[in-house]
């Protein structure tokens, strides 16, 4: 399932906010096509790592490599164009746009017409718009959202908003997808369904997925490899079985977190 090529690698990645070290010496090696879990207690620095990888934050230390290319100095926009897409822990949809338009915005890199084509509604505009609409609809179908295509994004129920964010990210055609607590606020049935969808997405789009999640059943059930973070530093890395049986992890996180 996974081949040997590294899609993502970081070296000594870190960031300080004022005096506070939020993330320190974070190293990760992710293989192409891998589903990888990033777990740890609240405030451990998981979301901050996503913000570093996507250049929302400027790292104070270390380097990030995507497919062997150093992307540490790239911008948020170019990181996406190079192949990383993400969702946000506190959902950031384009709230006044429709569900369909949210996905279309993610696909604009492949829409080829210029301002004049659109203002004059030339055939090129019509054809490209038709194509992007069809592509966006097929993504919505994958997430069971097609019947909501014309609904304003902010009017969707919470669980569906999370799915829409994933669909929007996929529209950018990424090689690496970062999901920040994708199952948060979902009921068990929705969570189970989401697990299947994520597996399907990995196969269908042949991409690697790095996900943050608190639901241990979810993480253990879907991830091939897991890194545990505590106080901004890596506590352990391994397969789900290794993590489950790691005494340090149990002491710091799993033991106290599982009722």
């Amino acid at each position, binding site marked *: 399932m996974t081949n040997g090529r590294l899609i993502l690698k970081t070296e000594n990645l870190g960031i300080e906010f004022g005096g506070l070290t939020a993330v320190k010496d974070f190293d990760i090696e992710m293989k192409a096509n891998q589903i990888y879990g990033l777990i740890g207690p609240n405030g451990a620095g998981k979301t901050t790592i996503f913000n570093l990888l996507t250049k929302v934050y400027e790292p104070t230390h270390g380097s990030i490599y995507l497919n062997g290319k150093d992307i540490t100095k790239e911008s948020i*926009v170019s990181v*996406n164009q190079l192949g990383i897409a993400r969702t*946000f822990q506190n959902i950031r949809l384009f709230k*006044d*746009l429709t569900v369909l338009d949210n996905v279309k915005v993610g696909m604009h890199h492949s829409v080829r017409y210029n301002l004049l084509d659109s*203002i004059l509604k030339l055939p090129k505009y019509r054809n490209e718009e038709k194509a*992007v609409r069809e592509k966006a609809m097929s993504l919505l179908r994958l997430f069971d959202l097609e019947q909501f295509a014309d609904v304003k994004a902010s009017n969707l129920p919470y669980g569906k908003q999370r799915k829409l964010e994933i669909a929007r990210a996929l*529209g950018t055609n990424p090689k690496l997808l970062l999901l920040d607590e994708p199952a948060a606020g979902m009921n068990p049935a929705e969570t189970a369904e989401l697990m299947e969808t994520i597996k399907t997405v990995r196969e269908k789009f042949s991409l690697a997925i790095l996900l943050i999640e608190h639901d241990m059943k979810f993480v253990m059930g879907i991830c091939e490899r897991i890194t545990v973070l505590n106080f901004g530093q890596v506590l352990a890395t391994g397969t789900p079985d290794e993590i489950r049986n790691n005494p340090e992890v149990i002491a710091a996180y799993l033991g106290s977190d599982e009722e």
Partner: protein
Amino acid sequence: MAKLKTAFLGKNRNCHLCLGLVIIAYIVIEVLMYTGSLKSLFINLLVPVTSYIIVALALNLVVGISGELSLGHAGFMSIGAFTGVIVSNVMATMISNDILRLVISIIVGAIVAAFFGFLISIPVLKLQGDYLAIVTLAFGQIIKSLINNTFLGFDSNGFHFSFITNTVTLGTGGKMLINGPIGATATDRISTFTVGVILLIITILIIFHFINSKYGRSVMATRDDRIAAQSVGINVVKTKTIAFVLSAGIAGAAGVLYGLNFSTLVPARFDFNQSILILVYVVLGGLGNMFGTIISTFILVLLPELLRFLADYRMLIYAIVLIVIMIVTNNPTINQFIKKIFRRKKAEGELNND
């Protein structure tokens, strides 16, 4: 018939509603003019009101769609107006057809205003926050002062220009185009209501086609969430620049229409108050709501004139109307009520279709 209805209202409902409103209003006004039942006061206001609707739509593109505040749209109008005066005068001997001369003036005025819009947006739109508001405010003032101090004449030897003090001497047959604070005088009044309405229709089409394109979606996405837009690969600076330049160009075109409607035009006509008034039309019509902008501008431009008979009470009534509109457009209960009526009508329409 049912098909026609869905095709008409369907995806581009708002665009078609705006076009319908403008065309119906045009026909009604033309008929009233033909039957002689319009007062000349009202007739004289037709071109200015059309200009203001166009510039208000342009401003709504920036404020409502792009989510940036511009306090200097009167400045773009001014650039358009005086460019239009210059172009129209220079071409007066070459092109005898007034309509053609007007159209060329509008195009040139729009391009020059768009260029200034581009110059402003280079430094400003890179920054986040309310910088655009501050810079456009300054821009409006600077443009007013510049034109106030510009002396530009034209004769058989070409252009003659001086700044701050008037040292322009013209040969026989020469004409002062911009005469400092006096502005433009003895301008051929070539603007017509019909050309204005056509320009308005073109503006509506341009704005809605823009909104319904990847450019419009990108700019609205950026407005809703800048980080999220960047995270899906949107170049937010480029996107906002395109919207702003387009808006400046349309405001310039409106300025030409306005400027060539009066034989005299002072630069102080396009001051800060003017920019704020245009913003008031936009806010009262609803941010991003083009239909509302058309209606609110129409009412608010005409109202002070139509209330003249009230003499001293005029501005009092004007203020009351402003407040009432504000309450009506922002009151959730009233909005709900209007929506409900509309939805019921739509539902009935759908039933009829079956």
